[in-house]
């Protein structure tokens, strides 16, 4: 019966995680939280798109030769409103937290976890399925948002995006999904480790505030300590300070995401860091082709994906080592 200890159990079709994911997805789609988030993001998008269209007309009038005009629509800042991308970058973590903070703890508190893992599925199917479902809803929300904005843009501006612009937006979409994955992974970990969903939500939101709103403040403080700026800094001192700020800032996934977004959606930007005057001296300001932009953001993108993997792996391991009962 158990003669062969190496006998690997073949999992029956369809894979367990798919069944879990499809159930979770159905739950998410009917959930109040999706409605609230859609409303929130929709509202932000409408306001900003409205402001951006006005602004873009101004730009378009005197810069009809501007490269990637359509994308400008996503990056243009209104007079009082930040750009659409800034808002999305700000709200994406919230999506990740919302669809992950109670992933496992809700099963525990409802008493369904023991029943779920006693079905013929692998234990990791539970976390995997939930993570996939969360990412799928987030992708759907972002896609809907991007399509609506693009649609409004085409209608109001009468500009059709070029192929390269579409490719850039697609790259941005994948990047944003990875950024959302970072937060979803963190939230999933919190839902495994913390028994109470409310605590997990609070911790998640606190992390979001610290890493997005207060990170610049904190980074500035730390940089001042490590590389103090005298009243009249020399060029070397100022440069040193700025470098520290940049590197410390990259601890936050928010910074990584922002840097990568800026490069991806502004073909004229050629580095995620800063350039010294001697480096741009006599440089011809030409837009970068997409592959060159991708090359510039490669480190940021890879780091973001690595962060997703790291958080998810932590959640996975924590879940696998946990006792069913407790």
């Amino acid at each position, binding site marked *: 019966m158990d003669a062969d200890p190496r006998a690997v159990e073949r999992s029956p079709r*369809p894979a367990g995680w798919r069944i879990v994911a499809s159930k979770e997805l159905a739950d998410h789609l009917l959930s109040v939280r999706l409605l609230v988030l859609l409303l929130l993001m929709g509202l932000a998008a409408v306001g900003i798109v409205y402001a951006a269209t006005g602004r873009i007309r101004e730009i378009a009038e005197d810069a009809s030769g501007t490269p990637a005009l359509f994308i400008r629509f996503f990056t243009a800042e209104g007079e009082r409103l930040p750009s659409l991308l800034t808002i999305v970058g700000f709200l994406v973590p919230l999506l990740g937290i919302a669809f992950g903070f109670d992933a496992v703890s809700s099963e525990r508190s*409802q008493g369904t976890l023991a029943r779920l*893992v006693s079905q013929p599925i692998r234990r990791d199917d539970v976390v995997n399925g939930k993570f996939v479902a969360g990412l799928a809803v987030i992708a759907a929300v972002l896609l809907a948002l991007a399509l609506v904005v693009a649609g409004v843009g085409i209608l109001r501006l009468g500009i059709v995006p070029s192929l390269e612009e579409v490719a850039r937006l697609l790259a941005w979409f994948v990047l944003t999904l990875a950024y959302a994955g970072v937060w979803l992974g963190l939230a999933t970990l919190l839902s495994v480790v913390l028994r109470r969903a409310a605590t997990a939500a609070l911790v998640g939101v606190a992390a979001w505030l610290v890493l997005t709103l207060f990170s610049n403040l904190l980074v500035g403080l730390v940089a001042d300590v490590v590389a103090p700026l005298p009243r009249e800094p020399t060029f070397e001192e100022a440069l040193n300070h700025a470098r520290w700020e940049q590197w410390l800032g990259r601890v936050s996934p928010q910074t990584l995401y922002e840097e990568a977004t800026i490069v991806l959606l502004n073909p004229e930007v050629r580095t995620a860091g800063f350039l010294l005057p001697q480096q741009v001296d006599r440089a011809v300001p030409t837009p970068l082709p997409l592959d060159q932009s991708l090359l510039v953001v490669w480190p940021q993108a890879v780091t973001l994906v690595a962060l997703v993997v790291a958080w998810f792996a932590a959640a996975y391991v924590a879940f696998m080592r946990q006792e069913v009962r407790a």
Partner: protein
Amino acid sequence: MAGQAPAVEARGLTKRYGDTLAVDRLDLSIRPGEIFGLLGPNGAGKTTTILMLLGLSEPSAGEARVLGMDPVRRPLEVKRRVGYVPDDVGFYGSLTGRENLRYTARLNRLPAREAEERIDHLLDEVGLAEAADRPVETYSRGMRQRLGIADALVKEPEVAILDEPTVGIDPEGVAEILELIRGLARDRGATVLLSSHLLHQVRSICDRVGIFIGGRLVAHGPVPELAERLAVGPVTIEVGVGDGAPVELHERLGSLPGVREVVRDAREPGRWRLVAEQDLRPAVAETLVRSGVPIRHLHRLEDELDEIYRRYFREAVGDGR
């Protein structure tokens, strides 16, 4: 017993959490078609044992066999053929009873049409046909427990494991649930392992019980046999007498041949307890009648499974475990 391979078997099954032994070298063998009651106080290691049998918790030592398979090595196969109703079973509150069962059917990869038929039938059987399309959050505890049994049966298990199936349910509900469990073995030929700390509730349906205290199986066998085995030792008799029992009653009872000890209940002066070599009820009754003391009640405590249990508990602790 011989000839037939046991449906559930444990050999030296042990689970250690840090320094505490949750389950200590458990040996157990349950025959196919049998209803076995795992009885013991809360925290005795019943749930831990069940989780090890399902492959949801890895034994620290020893091994288990369920339907001849090792749950550690072949958890999926075991979980496909074993239905489990956890302690305080939970469901997704916003889904209906039927939707909850459907999810279980999908997780067991049942073909949709077959699953629908089976679910209909099961809901009817556990008396939830009318509530089937209401969200589970509107269910009472008894209804949830019955849904739990239906849920475990969706996969048509060969072994059903029920953890504390009667806790927190009113007496009528308990009777219904016990009848369902009895039907599992009788009509479906399933092997049933149930755990409980309420012995009097489940004794009637168990073919055999095992008494589980402090992680050890201290006794097992059919209920009457266990009771008999215990009766060999000293017997405790409880007497309820009316007020105004004469003071010399204590002495008179104590002087009966074979009585070891007479204790008067501190809280209820009308309640006396005798420890005797054998069953002295007739002699006690005679003494009381002769003393002109009205008898309120007179019974032997060992008859109750609860008493067996208390008794074993004392012994297990006395062993210096």
